[in-house]
């Protein structure tokens, strides 16, 4: 089942639909082969995402989180709906939530008194919108392509927001830039990406 997954060349990667199908299979019948294939493909991506640019997390921490995300994938796969989100989008939200959980547990504040869980605030189904996913696979490819062609300063800011989980204010002080500059770089980058999504 997962023999051809090791190929690193982006052009020979299976389509987004391939991963969505596998994820639905896990959800429907707890298919371990499908889960193994997802694990082979996504674990290194999650690991890389969390360790981004050395500004990310410590090695052991990200290892722990990678496993946590994959456990969530297994447990929540039954609620995954491929007509609403690509597998990668769904797994991104699980990864994001695992990081929020982790940071929260390690913050000084007493999480015991908290009536809310991370999932109460960041529900992975929140942004699910069936109608914009009509051409999900094509859109995902185009967004990925466009991301590579963004001006590097816009790309850098988006990476810091998403992959390092930094607020605009934190990025501004790290890069020694005015807050307004960081905001407009993020906005410009998103605008171009969204234009692509909207066409589809």
């Amino acid at each position: 089942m997962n023999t051809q997954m090791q190929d690193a060349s982006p052009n020979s990667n299976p389509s987004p639909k391939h991963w969505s199908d596998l994820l639905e299979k896990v959800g429907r019948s707890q298919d371990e082969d499908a889960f193994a294939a997802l694990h082979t493909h996504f674990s290194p991506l999650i690991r890389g995402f969390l360790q981004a640019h050395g500004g990310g997390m410590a090695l052991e921490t990200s290892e722990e989180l990678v496993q946590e995300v994959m456990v969530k994938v297994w447990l929540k796969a039954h609620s995954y709906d491929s007509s609403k989100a690509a597998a990668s989008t769904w797994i991104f939200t699980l990864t994001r939530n695992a990081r929020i959980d982790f940071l929260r547990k390690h913050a000084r504040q007493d999480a015991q008194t908290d009536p809310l869980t991370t999932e109460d605030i960041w529900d992975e189904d929140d942004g699910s919108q069936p109608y914009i996913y009509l051409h999900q696979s094509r859109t995902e490819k185009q967004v990925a392509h466009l991301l590579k062609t963004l001006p590097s300063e816009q790309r850098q800011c988006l990476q810091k927001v998403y992959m390092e989980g930094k607020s605009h204010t934190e990025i501004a002080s790290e890069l020694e830039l005015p807050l307004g500059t960081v905001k407009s770089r993020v906005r410009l980058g998103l605008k171009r990406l969204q234009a692509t999504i909207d066409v589809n």
Partner: protein
Amino acid sequence: MITFHPDENLLAEYAAGSLDWGLSISVKAHLAMCPQCRRQLSKLNMVGAALLNESAPASSDMSANTPSDFDSLMQKIRSLPKQESKGVTEGAKLEDNSELPEIVRKLLPKERIKWRRVSPSLREAQLTTGQDKYEVCLHKISRGAKVAEHDHGGREVTVILQGSFSDEDGTYNVGDFMMREPGQKHRPTAAQNQDCLCLSVVEAPVRLTGVLGKLINPFLSFQPG
């Protein structure tokens, strides 16, 4: 109709999970009422997915999963206790809370809401959220009442849950999301026909020292406005 939304930067920070817990609660409350922002969020999540898709680890020898990784993953999964079905945790009832966003209902206290009278026409109920950077509360303005002009001295987000109010800048209806920076004074007036209920998320006063601390941060002097 909803006219005021979180700006794109705020929504991006929320989608990325880099937005503060307290502010995220207010964004979530707005999302529950705003299909337009939910649609926007789904696109922002796709950007996250695109970044995930190209996140190969820095060194290639760490990127390979070994078979034992998967074995230990499955072992962990099998050792997990059976999932309990998640009961709906809902707090005390407001007179009419059926329409409130789920996130707000989850924040309501178990017994009854303790309203504090701020002025004859304004009542406030503090909500516990497990963090102290932002004060999260409900505000209830009696119909037709004017609230004294105020400035919280910190960032303030208001999300309208019921009724409507207006101030110098316009009229705000159910679902509207407003963020005011420190120093922006306003004097809201509730609509004549209904009490106005809002969720307020206000930068806690103790944070002011932090803000002052940032004033001597040299980068801040570049900031416009």
